[in-house]
């Protein structure tokens, strides 16, 4: 996030929520937003599902799943056409206005109305509300990023913010609401194939700096992304997979494919606190201390470094994850893994990236209850709002407006981008974005299928399903297939009847819940439950050309009503491949 989440309560005049179900996935951020609304802030919500926040919004736009770029471009088009953009900001602090002007020319609110039925007047109203606000905050989550045009979606959002000067001031900004406690931290610590904790692996200066601290030269070749791994295993390129603290069998797209791939590994090591679905398929399982049993730091969505305290002792022999890693590194013979407490690792991080973390000692983090990076020295107060000097982190200090176009067929994206680059003479190092749908509904699979979370569970349920007040108290429904009214009517689906959703990748069976909040033609389910995991159907073949991300939020599927016997049969099959060993089939939450 460019800004601090508390500013939603105190400073934002308009909240622009797109692809986020904030009240279910971030209830406390929703609480802060609600405080903002009570103060008088307006709210725009754009989502295929009429969420609880949508029902409280001043403007709600129900988009088809994946229809983001045409809508955002239409808004940008209107803002430029009506001269509602911040000329001072755009002229002085950004590049690329002409590119964007050209790219959005074909996108009008009327086109959106024609293609989706969303009234053009509503698109205009939303664009004007956002553009005219003194401070407007864009908030988004996976409903923007988990598509084959996820990166371009975010280009469009940053275009909106740059055009309207909504950067570098309180209550504004582009704000990804991080779904997991330490997404920001894991990225900043360099747990990425192309980025280290000091910067890009392709940057010789970065590698030199790391060498000066580690004493070892690191590779300059970016590694594989998580989504590439199943293919890389099949190609025989990856032989050894070490998974720690995650459950990719359930959280990665296309479960069956992922399971088949990991079976081909020479060895899979899983380090976790429970015998997860992934751990059950591992060759080595290493236990580790959980949250509450170790200390360290998390980085929240506002880039705030906060302390995590050890409260209880773990079982005998069980040590924190970093200690397990050190034990292994030392046995391999690697130097520089002789830490004896977490703080020593953090102090090394501060040396690796002094610009961000230099001033953030444990003592200070604890005393001040968390501080946002960049914080280069002990006297620096931290930076809750980025870009207050109106300078980007790019070498020329300017913000880039990125032209984003849209292809009717995903195969045409590259050629359309090239045409745009040639036509406008865009330099080769200047980014260009494009969008397209990864899959389109057809006769065989006539429904759009999307996944998401429920407030009472977290991700693959490894932790929350072990907590009775959540699993038994708040979650009274269990796994359900939520369908829009038209799907239910066309297929004779009743509330609580059994149904199976399937596509070419897999199928899941669960009870049906008819959800009037869903846009017509849409099926929604969660990925919390091993017994009915939405990711069995997710698309793992298509990727975003820029980030390598799979379109987890969108695929196509068919749904039909089934008998109780068939329901049990499908559930048993699912159970067999999630928990293949008889030994652990009874280990069920």
């Amino acid at each position, binding site marked *: 996030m460019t800004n601090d989440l508390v500013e939603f309560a105190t400073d934002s005049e308009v909240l622009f929520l797109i692809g986020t179900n904030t*009240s*279910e996935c971030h*209830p*406390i951020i*929703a*609480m802060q937003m*609600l405080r903002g609304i*009570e103060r008088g802030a307006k709210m725009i919500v754009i989502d295929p599902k009429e969420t*609880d*926040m949508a*029902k*409280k919004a001043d403007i709600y736009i129900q988009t088809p799943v994946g229809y983001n770029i045409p809508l955002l471009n239409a808004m940008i088009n209107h803002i430029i056409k009506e001269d509602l953009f911040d000329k001072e900001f755009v002229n002085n602090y950004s590049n690329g206005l002409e590119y964007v002007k050209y790219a959005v020319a074909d996108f009008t609110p009327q086109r959106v109305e024609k293609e989706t039925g969303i009234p053009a007047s509503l698109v205009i109203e939303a664009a004007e509300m956002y553009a005219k606000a003194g401070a407007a905050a864009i908030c988004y989550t996976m409903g923007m990023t988990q598509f084959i045009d996820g990166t371009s979606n975010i280009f469009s959002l940053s275009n909106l913010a740059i055009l309207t000067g909504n950067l570098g001031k309180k209550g504004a900004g582009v704000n990804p609401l991080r779904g997991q406690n330490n997404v920001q931290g894991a990225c900043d610590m360099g747990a990425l194939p192309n980025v280290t904790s000091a910067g890009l692996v392709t940057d010789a200066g970065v590698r030199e700096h790391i060498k000066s601290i580690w004493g070892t030269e690191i590779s300059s070749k970016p590694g594989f992304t998580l989504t590439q791994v199943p293919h890389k295993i099949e190609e025989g390129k990856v032989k050894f997979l070490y998974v720690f603290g995650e459950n990719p069998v359930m959280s990665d797209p296309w479960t069956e494919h992922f399971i088949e791939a990991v079976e081909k590994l020479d060895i899979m090591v899983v380090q976790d606190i429970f015998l997860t679905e992934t751990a059950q398929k591992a060759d080595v399982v290493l236990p580790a201390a959980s949250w509450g049993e170790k200390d360290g730091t998390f980085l929240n969505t506002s880039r705030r470094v906060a302390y995590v305290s050890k409260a209880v002792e773990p079982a005998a022999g069980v040590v924190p994850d970093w200690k397990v890693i050190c034990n292994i590194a030392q046995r391999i013979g690697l130097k520089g893994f002789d830490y004896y407490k977490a703080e020593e690792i953090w102090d090394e991080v501060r040396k690796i990236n002094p610009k961000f973390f230099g001033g953030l000692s444990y003592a200070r983090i604890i005393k001040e209850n968390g501080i946002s990076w960049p914080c280069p020295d002990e006297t620096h107060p931290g930076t809750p709002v980025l870009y207050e000097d109106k300078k980007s982190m790019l070498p020329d200090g300017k913000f880039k407006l990125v032209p984003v176009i849209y292809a009717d067929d995903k195969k045409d994206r590259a050629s359309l981008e090239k045409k745009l680059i040639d036509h406008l003479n865009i330099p080769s190092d200047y980014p260009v974005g494009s969008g397209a749908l990864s899959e389109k509904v057809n006769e065989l699979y006539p429904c759009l299928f999307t996944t998401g979370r429920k*407030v*009472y569970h977290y991700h693959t349920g490894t932790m929350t399903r072990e907590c*009775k*007040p*959540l699993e*038994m*108290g*708040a979650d*009274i*429904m*269990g*796994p*359900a297939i939520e369908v829009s009214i038209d799907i239910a009517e066309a297929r004779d689906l009743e509330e*609580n009847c059994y149904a199976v959703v399937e596509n070419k990748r897999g199928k899941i069976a*669960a*009870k049906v819940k008819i959800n*009037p*909040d869903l846009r017509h033609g849409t099926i929604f389910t969660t990925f919390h439950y*091993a*017994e009915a995991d939405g990711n069995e159907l997710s698309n793992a073949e298509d990727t975003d050309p820029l980030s390598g991300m799979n379109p987890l939020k969108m695929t196509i599927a068919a749904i039909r009503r089934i008998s109780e016997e068939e329901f*049990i049969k499908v*559930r*048993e099959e699912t*159970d067999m491949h999630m928990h293949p060993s008889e030994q652990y089939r009874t280990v*069920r939450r």
Partner: protein
Amino acid sequence: MSLPKRVNKFVVADPNVCIGCATCMAACYESSHKRGKLAVPRLIVTRSKSGTMPNQCRQCDDAPCANVCPVGALRFADDNIELFEEICIGCKMCTLACPFGAIRAEAEIMPSVNYAMEPKYNLAIESEIGAKSIAVKCDLCAGDDNGPACVQVCPTGALLFIDSQNIDYKLINQKAEGAVESFVNTALRTI
């Protein structure tokens, strides 16, 4: 001499600030579990086309449930409708009589049940042999000095605990003032 003032206490939610986060349901589970009651939530976050809020017993003064209960498991107490779980025979008449859908028949979830094969929200009807379903409704966390747990935990302050002390102010006078205010400001001006 003053007349005794009898108003049943109740919990009610404000849908304008409820975000549907279900924290109240988890708190309710925890409270009933701790107090030795059937461990299920007694208020259910209910989503409708126009909004979301938890739904629970209104503790009606002339409660249909207590009137219809054949065994006296639901009784008129001093300031609420009391439910004696151990007397309940699971006839489900109260669930039909309740005009708010705030009483449900529930059975304890059995550790022996394989929930991967049996969606748990149907247990009231499909419960195992030996697990009798009983009526479940909000008991205002009777026995807990801190009052209803849901009201304490609600992060947006959407849940209100109304008793004879604050009913006038919180629910009636405040709104009356608001109505008068808007009438004076807008309606009267245009007459």
